[in-house]
């Protein structure tokens, strides 16, 4: 090549010009979405982010009723937190059966799941969706970060103190679900950054201790109970969560904490913020947000909080056969959920808690899982109000899910007393239980005596009072009846497509769900639960 010096200089200048003229600038930032670099300059972003944590329990993605799902690998409607939690807590027990043949669902009825069963897998990821979001919220809302962004408005600062406590409550709630369902799981906190290495597996005890310490740390920083904080976590909600965790501490850690469970239940009852609803049915109707019994609810709204999971699922799926959807305020029946026969037999005559059961055209025995008419229908969650006012929508319900309510606090009190917790007494326990029974029987005809108040009675009463409220699996495990052969119910341990429905003994490893197969592959630190 034969370049003269001036040519060389001109060329060098040209190349420099090319570089300087941004001819190689590739940065094209998104315009229609906000990124982490600037979202938190908006003071409203903190409330919106916290709302997303609550929404994590209530909806399935960023678009109601479906769209932009939070987790993938499963149909979005199926992936909704409450729907999954309800299915993992109810379907394998003596309380419920679901007709559908969708992948991952039949085995839930019969304790025959695997580490790839979609409902089990999705539930695990739902827990961590909540945990990671809460962690990010806690990282983004520290005093230092707020100061850095000049977020100095005193009201905002006060609110953010509440929000941080609520985020920690919600994280603790999901961790409780996590250890209850899956056992030893990784403990991931705000110190584990996004994109970091796969977390180590913690023991159930470690996570239990974390939940307890977190709840104790925030219990006084949560917003106060009342209509203006309905739907949010309050101090009594944290006490209730503590009571639940302590009640099952023996299962989680090997060491029972009956006294602590009793104390926590007393804190709820003693807060005075709640009272037993005079109507049991009101707790499960479209206007249950007005009930003074509900301590913590997953809120639903036909117009503003839409999902194919949640109570919309519960209300639609428990309708079918000759039931008329209009009666329940819904636009159609999904022909799914019925009672296993054992649940129907929980109730004695006169117990009005079974008053809504639908028997016409339904058989007691569930001779076929896929046939809706086999098994008594139990439309517990209905999209009609207690006063007959039409709901806001019939495709999506207004009915909230009462995750914690005072009635259960009474039952925890009673069980903790009977199991030897100190600080309470049997007489008070009997009073509480009879309050529930008087509501159920519409008078004292169903009252029991101190002699009848046994642990077995408590389990049966929990079945009656809290039917289909997502407690049953945990209760049966605490009583040692979920697996094994001591208590058999329809379809337990059997082939969901088979014909034999008497139930057989199951192996105790089923007391824990398996860690998802995909998770064990993705995170080499994890050891699968025994038996899977």
């Amino acid at each position: 090549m034969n370049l003269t010096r001036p040519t060389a200089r001109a060329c060098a200048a040209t190349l420099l010009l090319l570089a300087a003229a941004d001819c190689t600038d590739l940065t094209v930032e998104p315009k229609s979405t906000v990124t982490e670099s600037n979202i938190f300059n908006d003071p409203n972003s903190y409330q919106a982010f916290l709302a997303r944590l609550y929404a994590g329990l209530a909806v399935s993605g960023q678009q109601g009723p479906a769209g932009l799902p939070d987790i993938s690998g499963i149909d979005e409607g199926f992936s909704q937190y409450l729907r999954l939690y309800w299915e993992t807590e109810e379907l394998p027990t003596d309380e419920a059966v679901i007709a559908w043949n969708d992948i991952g669902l039949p085995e839930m009825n019969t304790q025959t799941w695997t580490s790839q069963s979609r409902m089990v897998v999705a539930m695990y990821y739902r827990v961590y969706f909540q945990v990671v979001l809460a962690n990010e919220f806690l990282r983004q809302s520290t005093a230092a970060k707020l100061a850095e962004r000049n977020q100095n408005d005193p009201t905002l600062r006060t609110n953010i103190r509440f929000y941080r406590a609520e985020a920690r409550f919600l994280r603790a709630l999901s961790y409780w679900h996590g250890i209850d369902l899956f056992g030893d799981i990784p403990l991931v906190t705000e110190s584990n950054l996004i994109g970091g290495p796969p977390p180590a597996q913690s023991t159930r005890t470690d996570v239990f201790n974390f939940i307890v310490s977190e709840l104790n740390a925030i219990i006084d920083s949560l917003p106060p109970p009342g209509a203006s904080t309905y739907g949010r976590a309050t101090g009594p909600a944290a006490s209730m969560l503590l009571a639940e965790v302590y009640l099952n501490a023996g299962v989680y850690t090997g060491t029972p904490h009956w006294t602590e469970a009793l104390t926590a239940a007393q804190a709820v009852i003693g807060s005075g913020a709640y009272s037993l609803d005079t109507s049991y049915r009101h707790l499960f109707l479209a206007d249950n947000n007005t009930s003074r019994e509900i301590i913590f609810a997953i809120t639903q709204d036909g117009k503003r909080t839409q999902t194919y999971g949640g109570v919309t699922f519960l209300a639609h799926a428990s309708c079918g056969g000759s039931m008329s959807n209009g009666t329940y305020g819904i636009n159609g029946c999904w022909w799914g959920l019925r009672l296993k026969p054992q649940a129907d037999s929980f109730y004695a005559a006169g117990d009005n808690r079974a008053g809504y059961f639908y028997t016409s055209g339904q058989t007691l025995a569930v001779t076929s899982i896929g046939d809706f008419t086999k098994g008594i229908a139990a439309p517990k969650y209905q999209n009609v109000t207690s006063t007959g006012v039409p709901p806001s929508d019939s495709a999506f319900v207004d009915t909230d899910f009462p995750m914690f309510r005072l009635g259960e606090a009474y039952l925890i009190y009673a069980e903790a007393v009977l199991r030897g917790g100190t600080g309470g007494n049997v007489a008070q326990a009997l009073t509480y239980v009879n309050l529930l029974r008087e509501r159920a029987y519409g008078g004292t005809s169903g009252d029991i005596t101190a002699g009848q108040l046994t642990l077995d009675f408590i389990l049966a009463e929990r079945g009656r009072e809290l039917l289909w409220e997502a407690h049953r699996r945990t209760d049966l495990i605490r009583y040692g009846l979920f697996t094994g052969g001591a208590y058999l119910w329809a379809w337990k341990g059997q082939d969901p497509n088979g014909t034999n429905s008497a139930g057989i003994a199951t192996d105790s490893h089923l007391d824990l769900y398996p860690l998802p197969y995909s998770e064990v592959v993705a995170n080499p630190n994890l050891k699968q639960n025994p038996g899977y």
Partner: protein
Amino acid sequence: MKRAECVIGALLAVLCVAPLGAQQPSGTVRGHVTDDATHQPLSGISVAIGSRAALTQADGRYVVTGVPAGSDTLRTRMIGYAPAKRAVTVAAGDTVVVDVALSPQAVGLSEIVVTGYGEQRAGNITGSVTQVTAEQFNTGRVVSPQQLIENKVAGVQLVDNNEPGGNLTIRIRGATSVNASSEPLYVVDGMPVGTGAGGGIFVGRDTLNPSAGRDALNFLNPRDIASVTVLKDASAAAIYGANAANGVVLITTKSGRGGSQVEYSGSASSSSVTRLPSMLNAAQFRAAVLAHGDTSQINQLGNANTDWFGLVDRTAFGQDHNFAVSGTGGSNRYRLSLGYLNQDGIIQGTSTQRISLGFNYDQRVLNDRLSVRTNLKGSRSFDQFPPGGVLSNAAQMGPTQPVYDPNTVTGYYNWPKNQLQSADNPLQLLNLAKFQGTTYRSVGNVQADYSLPFVEGLKANVNLGYDVTQFTQATFNPSVLHSEIKSGNFGSEYRTDPNMVNTVLETYLNYARTLSFVPGTIDATAGYSYVQSHAEFPSLTLTGLSTDIFDINGFPTAAHVSPGSPNVQESRLISFFGRLTYNHSDRYLAAVSLRRDGSSRFGASNAWGTFPSVALAWRISQEPFLSRVRELSDLKLRVSWAKTGNQAFANYQQYTAYLAGNSLAQVQFGNVFVPTIRPSAVDKNIKWEETAATNVGLDFGFLEQRFSGAIDWYVKKTSDLIFTVPQPAGTNFSNFVTSNIGTMKNQGIEASLSARVLRGGGSRLTWTADFTAAHNTNRLTSISANGAQQIPVNGVSGGVGTTIGILEPGQPINSFFVCQQQYRNGKPVEGKYVSLADTIASTCDAASLRAYHDPAPKWILGHSSYLTYGNFDFSFTLRAWLGNWVYNNVASNLGTYQEVRRFSPYNLHTSVLTTGFLTPQYLSDYYVEDGSFLRMDNITLGYSFTYRGQQVRLFSTVQNVFTITGYGGVDPTAGLNGVDNNIYPRSRTVTGGLSVRF
């Protein structure tokens, strides 16, 4: 303007790199080289006198300087032509003119083939490239340009969604991607299109709205296309870098030729349906309900005998008219064309209409040193789509029920009580619901090609182009529709008005000369490209319409109004590229290229990718030891290797975006509802997918190319495949993140043979027969960093979240994932499967599920014959696919008696009469069928004559004449995922037409 500076700067920069020539004294020889037969000038001819040599320019002109005084021999050499010799005598300081006419030998080898950023003689191509010209194009009802080359190129698979103008997907040598696009890059007259300017709109290279199912190239009138070149192997495509991994299709439109002329061509067609899903008739349906329903279903049965599919489809008519005015002047060429197409679909109410305009103008100025070519194309398409659910409801609706019911608001019958579990009257849907779209698109560019005066053989090329689309799509479902009442929507309307603007600036220098220090010629190209895309997607959804009176044309008051975010999507692709080819006596050929691409889609740490290629070819037939085999006109061995990229995935994947929730996903804080925000889970280091490909090919020709063909073997290894893979819980915002994980391999062979069997001439019979065969195997080799994994894909109807496909290492992508059905006496046993452990299982679960066949054909065979006899021409095209499997989803979803136990019974697929299945067995391999077929795609008969001095041709074409297949569903080419689920039926089309040239 910044981008203009970029172009000028880049042009200057590449100039710096270009070698500069040196002068020497002595005599000069110049002249023209032409084709002896056509008298057309020939370019790129090597003219040598002793050690001095030059190449002819586009107009055939050559100048050899520095020829030593005295007598010598001038030799010319051009592939496909006989070498020529002329004695020359030059005196010092003189200029001698020597014009040479070359006699053609094997013309096929000298044809000019359009390649990336240039063109080449067919015989000297080192990669695997196939050009299809207008004479070979398919005729008949051709709505989309890709249909022109269907079945004409070995290794190119075309999948049609059967709607006229519907989306066509092309796979060149198999799919190279799972989650990015596997569609090739289309370059029309030098303009990259359909790529969202190297930037897809949704994901990859799709149409503006893939859901609308219309093809990305529909703006282009197929009658305006002169040639289509497919760059199949990576070395040929590599000059397109990060857009090249799926191959490149170069489309050149017609320009003016010969004297001024006016052309008209037109055709009219009639299409009818071939196959429909096989559903129970009224009597069979009644029997099924009586046997398996209960009183509530039985009581709903009517007494009609309705063939719902028969009412939904129709004989569809179409017409197509094209005018073109073209001509050439002393220094210019032009062609102006106008097209009108109106094609109805075989489903009632569906149609596509297109008005298109094309204008090409070439002007040569400055003593022909500067050539400016302008290409402008514009079109308006109006499409009527089948309203959602027409086909699925035609399958589900009970044949015992009547069409009309005078006692209803709409006059149409529907099942009582408006239950979710009842089918909709498909006729009501067809006639009351609307789904339509209008697309305006214009693509244009100006290409200036300048032969620099100071260095012979040095050219600069600048290409400025745009691609603008404005699209409106609307659906309207009136509140009185059964489907709207039962869903609780009570009327819905959706409208979207996306628009897209892409701009392209490209420039390159080309330098071609003979070398003095070693034998041979070189051709060097170096360039810069800047491509930018901007698109917006506003939308509006209304539900709960207060009135239906405005139909699709207005927005009434509605219970829910959800505006979609404008969703601005922008992307940029900046590239530097270079290529050097070397040709020694047409015997030793080499090409190397390098492209460096930077994309706005790549994470900061991976912003730039480098894509090299090397290709070598050896024309063995040119060697002395074969020169005695006179029958052998060409034998060329080609070997190439290249790395290409794929960046056809969504924008902004590297940014953690906080997405706002909509008004239907709020939560309650006390008495107020709070909208939410959610961070997205991303991999900040996302980058292109990379395919490294090796190709070995052999081109051969006998008897002056009377028989010619090629055999190619290739292997393509794709790495950094983009997958949405599970993340360890606790490490990201969701359980799946899109990341570059995974590898895949495609391997195959291709063969093509073209035989001019009869060369009759005059009034005697001529027959040219082309054969193609291609075999491809696809294997996913890994999909995660941590070992084996399975990702379920391809959702199907039946249940919720049911998927039929699997992505699993060791298997082809989209393999079916099913359980092996147990049979007794040739009949499937309900609910019984052969497990992986070879036991009989009564559930289809992980213990029995296995990968089983896949939808991609293993062999694609094609044959085209072209015959002429006197004034008659006759051609036909046959195609066969072997080893493509299809899941018959209509059968699996509706082939079970349980479906009559819906609130209102669904009609059943006739497979239930064989299987007797009471409950659905969606994942039984019973429903996965071999889709191998032989199809006569096209028969055309034409007659040409001269009427009062005008050339006239009359023709008639039958398309999809017959299909021989063992497949029982609607169409064995049912989409890339192989799921036959109420797909638009394929039609048989008879076309008659005429073309006249004045």
